[in-house]
């Protein structure tokens, strides 16, 4: 098994075919045995330097990449924009070019501007992984979500994924649509109309229908959940409150919160995903995240294996057969 296209960076899921995604899963599966073994350290990336450049706060993504690199024996350096030369007014591009010159073999970039990893990637030689850019994409999160579903349910083809919440500001949902569709799932969005990226449904032009997966949009929670196999709740982004996307929390939770009560609309087999961090009691009730229907903890556990696989594919010497 090999990748359909050589991967020089990972900017978004649209670079990957179905075969590529399954290849990454197989890689991650092999690496899981290391994670579950007694000594969580292998010399696969010894001598390589990974730099995490995060200009936005992040705990899980940054730590997960850091841990993935360390398990593979790479040297991992974390740079965040506070405490870096950003604060002295150094330009973003100078900062990343400096990191390349210092000897990074790969840059993991989180940035608040959509497209920032694209801009970086075309201006430096080393591979770039997009660890979340603005409202645009979060491809490693999507691979983790897909892998989690693949491991717990199996075949993704034909599954119904319902994405609940603020999809207009969500990089997770944008990458999820591309990834889940590539593997044959059907995606339904449910949110207030103000939080809907309306291109996803009725506003799409004829020309662009071929350019994007077919998705369904509704603002009726009951309709959205009635045939769900998977329910992904998105974080309600309070930092964007100024956009006035809903009148107040009470109305939002009454109409859109995933609770024991609203979950009755969904088939019993439906599983719950959340890319984190969660606003418990807003988009999802706390007890649901701990319930047997939740895949949320698996998502976090699988994140390291997927990120290890990507690091090896992009900068390692090993192939799937030699790992």
């Amino acid at each position: 098994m090999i990748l359909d296209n050589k991967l020089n960076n990972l900017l978004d899921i649209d670079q990957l075919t179905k075969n590529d995604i399954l290849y990454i899963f197989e890689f991650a599966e092999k690496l899981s045995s290391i994670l579950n073994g007694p000594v969580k350290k292998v010399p696969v990336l010894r001598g390589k330097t990974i730099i995490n450049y995060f200009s936005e706060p992040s705990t899980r993504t940054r730590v997960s990449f850091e841990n993935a690199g360390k398990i593979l024996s790479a040297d991992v350096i974390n740079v965040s924009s506070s405490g870096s030369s950003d604060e002295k007014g150094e330009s973003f591009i100078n900062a990343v070019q400096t990191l390349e010159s210092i000897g990074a073999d790969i840059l993991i970039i989180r940035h608040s501007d959509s497209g920032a990893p694209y801009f970086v990637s075309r201006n430096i030689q080393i591979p770039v992984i997009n660890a979340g850019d603005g409202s645009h994409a979060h491809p490693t999160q999507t691979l983790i979500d897909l892998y989690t579903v693949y491991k717990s349910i199996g075949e993704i083809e034909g599954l119904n994924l319902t994405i609940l919440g603020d999809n207009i500001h969500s990089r997770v949902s944008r990458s999820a649509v591309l990834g889940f569709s590539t593997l044959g799932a059907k995606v339904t969005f449910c949110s207030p109309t103000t939080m809907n990226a309306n291109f996803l449904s009725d506003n799409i032009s004829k020309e662009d229908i071929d350019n994007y997966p077919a998705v369904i949009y509704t603002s009726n929670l009951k309709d959205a959940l009635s045939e769900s196999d998977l329910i992904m709740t998105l974080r309600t982004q309070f930092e964007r409150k100024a956009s006035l996307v809903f009148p107040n929390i009470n109305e939002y939770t009454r109409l859109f919160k995933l609770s024991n009560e609203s979950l009755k609309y969904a088939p019993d087999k439906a599983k719950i995903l959340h890319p984190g961090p969660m606003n418990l009691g807003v988009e999802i009730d706390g007890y649901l995240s701990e319930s047997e229907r939740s895949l949320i903890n698996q998502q976090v556990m699988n994140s390291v294996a997927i990120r290890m696989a990507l690091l090896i594919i992009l900068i390692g010497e090993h192939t799937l057969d030699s790992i």
Partner: protein
Amino acid sequence: MKKIIKNGKVFDGISNKIKQQDILIIDGVIQNIGNIEITGVDIEIIDASNYIVSPGFIDIHSHLREPGYEYKETIATGTRAASKGGFTTICAMPTTIPALDSKDSIDYFKDLCQQRSIIKVYPIGAVTMGREGKEIVEMQSLVDSGVIGFSDDGEPIQDPNIMRMSLEYSRMVSRPIMNHCDDRGINYRAEGVMNDGFLAQRLGCNGIPNAAEASMLSRDIFLTELTGGLYHACHVSASQSVDVLKIAKERGINYSAEVTPHHLTITEDFILGPTDQNRKQISENAYDTFAKVFPPLRTKSDIQALIEGINSDLISIIATDHAPQGYEDKMTTLNQAAFGISNFETTLGSVLQLFHSKDIKLEKLLQCLTSNPAEFLGKKLGKLSKGYPADIVIFDLNEEWEVDISDFVSLGKNSPLQGVKFKGKVLQTLVDGEIVYSDKKGHDG
């Protein structure tokens, strides 16, 4: 000092028919036009056989950046870039430091132009002090100092009462208010970076909807009707705006409107990069800051509406909105990058695409670049006729060339058209009978 331009295909800006004629220039002024027999020896002959001879282009909307932003452009480089593009007169927006909002700052700017410009430059005054949208400038003093109109440029006039008052006042000073229509309330509190729609959503970018332009233009048009003021719509980009202008014309409201070469010819797909514009798989070249311009590049249907707007005389002026930017202004993320396209040197090539594609007649395009903007300025310019200054451009309609931004004379190398192939090139530009630009390959003359 005598010159004669022989055998050119002359567009004179009056008859609007192109015909072979000769133009006799004495002391910088057109002395005669027609079939002229040359007598005497002290006469310079420019052979324009097979070339178009037109009044020099007049740009009513550009940015020279001096004083204040000399790293982006200077009066010296900007006017040379303009002459290379065939322009003999340009109007400079007040987006300088200090803003052109007082007699002193305008006198200073005119002094600088006197020393450094190689073509004719007219200043545009700010509408409000510091372009802050709060307090109207001393409009009559500014007109007395030579401004040809008023604009807060990239700071659209948000306050309807300021717009109403300045329109009322414009009647007295007889110069127009030139507004850049963008309702900041609709445009995500001014955080939009590209056209709103599928592509913006796909890229996770804040969009600037057509409605942000068309709604403010509607407000302005009806305030113009209310006040009888003098109003000019800057760079219309949205199909809805053309509809608003149609209503204005039907109601007999007096306005003028301009459109840029880029809004007439290229779409938002240039945000995906100069070459690989694939909406399905976004390439590494996407989020191209050179395609970030305000108003944003729109869609094919908007382009179609703008072309119809020109053909039905709803829009009568092509203006460049030449907006040179420095390297660091564009060498960043799409969100952080400055708006603007360096336009002087590609304008003719861009708009001639519409001639070659038979969308707009050559005569119409030339009117929009010469006699119509001259009429807007109310100056004795933009025509080839006895007594007019010999401001002339000679160009080849069919010469093919490829845009290379490193060849730009402008300090602003920010053009999304890198590598684009054009048909039609400026060969020579004359201001008051003096050659201010000559294509390096040269020709007789």
